[in-house]
């Protein structure tokens, strides 16, 4: 007769469980807390735009010298929030007392979430929108509407970009 019959197995299992249990253990608890608050960071490859003098007949739309501006928009937003990048001109294009409506400045965009638009000095214009946190990269190619009607001069204006990560 075998010493360990099939009926003995539950006792053997119990003994094995008891044998492998820790003899002693002490615990201490700590809490991890991470403030991953909202952040927004915007960078432009260039902070100046210039449009060379051109013949309105041959160059009715003057592209910006230096090509497109590369935009990098980094945002950490709350759950379900939409991150928005806008641009607003501080004024019309101005040269002394002469002005050119800022709407003469338009852009075409590339990159996920980036959109084409026309500059405004009254209402911020959307450059791009994205769902949630992340790093977005795109380009903005500006063009200036040329015209024989403009008074000669060197015109300038400031553009303000705003990235919002709610």
């Amino acid at each position, binding site marked *: 007769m075998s010493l360990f019959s099939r009926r003995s197995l539950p*006792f053997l299992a119990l003994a094995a469980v*008891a044998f492998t249990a820790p003899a*002693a253990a002490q615990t201490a*608890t700590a809490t991890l807390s991470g*403030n*991953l608050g909202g952040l927004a960071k915007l960078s432009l490859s260039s902070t100046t735009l210039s449009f060379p003098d051109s013949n309105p007949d041959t160059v009715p739309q003057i592209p910006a010298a230096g090509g497109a501006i590369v935009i990098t928009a*980094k945002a*950490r937003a709350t759950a379900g*929030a939409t991150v928005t990048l806008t641009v607003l001109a501080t004024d019309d294009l101005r040269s002394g007392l002469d002005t050119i409506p800022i709407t003469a400045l338009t852009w075409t965009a590339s990159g996920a979430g980036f959109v084409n638009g026309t500059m405004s000095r009254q209402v911020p214009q959307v450059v791009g929108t994205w769902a949630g946190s992340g790093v977005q990269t795109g380009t903005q190619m500006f063009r200036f509407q040329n015209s024989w009607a403009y008074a000669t001069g060197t015109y300038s204006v400031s553009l303000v970009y705003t990235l919002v990560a709610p």
Partner: protein
Amino acid sequence: MRTRLLERALMLAVGLAWFSAPAAAQPGLRLDISITPATITFPLSDPDTVPIISATPIQVTYRVRQNNGPWTLTVLASGDLIAGASTVDISNVTWVATPAPPFQNGVLSKTVAQRLASGTDNINPARQGQVTFRLANSWTYTAGLYTQTIVFTLTAP
């Protein structure tokens, strides 16, 4: 019938003997551990300039008395970092610990207790180690105040 009863009695006796064996080997084993501070905070930081966020170091005080074998200190997270419905995988939290040995660096897990320190015999009087937890920073995290509990366990098997 008598044979079966004898057989069960014998097995029960063996089981009880095994069950009581560890206690008999270390009859007065005493373990102590404390963590200071008990809250580990990662401050808000720009992922570009601070890709790894270090928390203020914590102090682990431990004591092992009347021990005749190895001891192990482990740490286990109760889950991922949580802020409402948003989560950050707990494996983004690592630690750097000193002195080494007995302490060692590691990565937090929510499923398997990770060894923080180990040694043999007694530690008496109490000794201290310093652990700095670090969070991999990222722009992709959803904004929020994340928390999670971690459990330190000192055992002498």
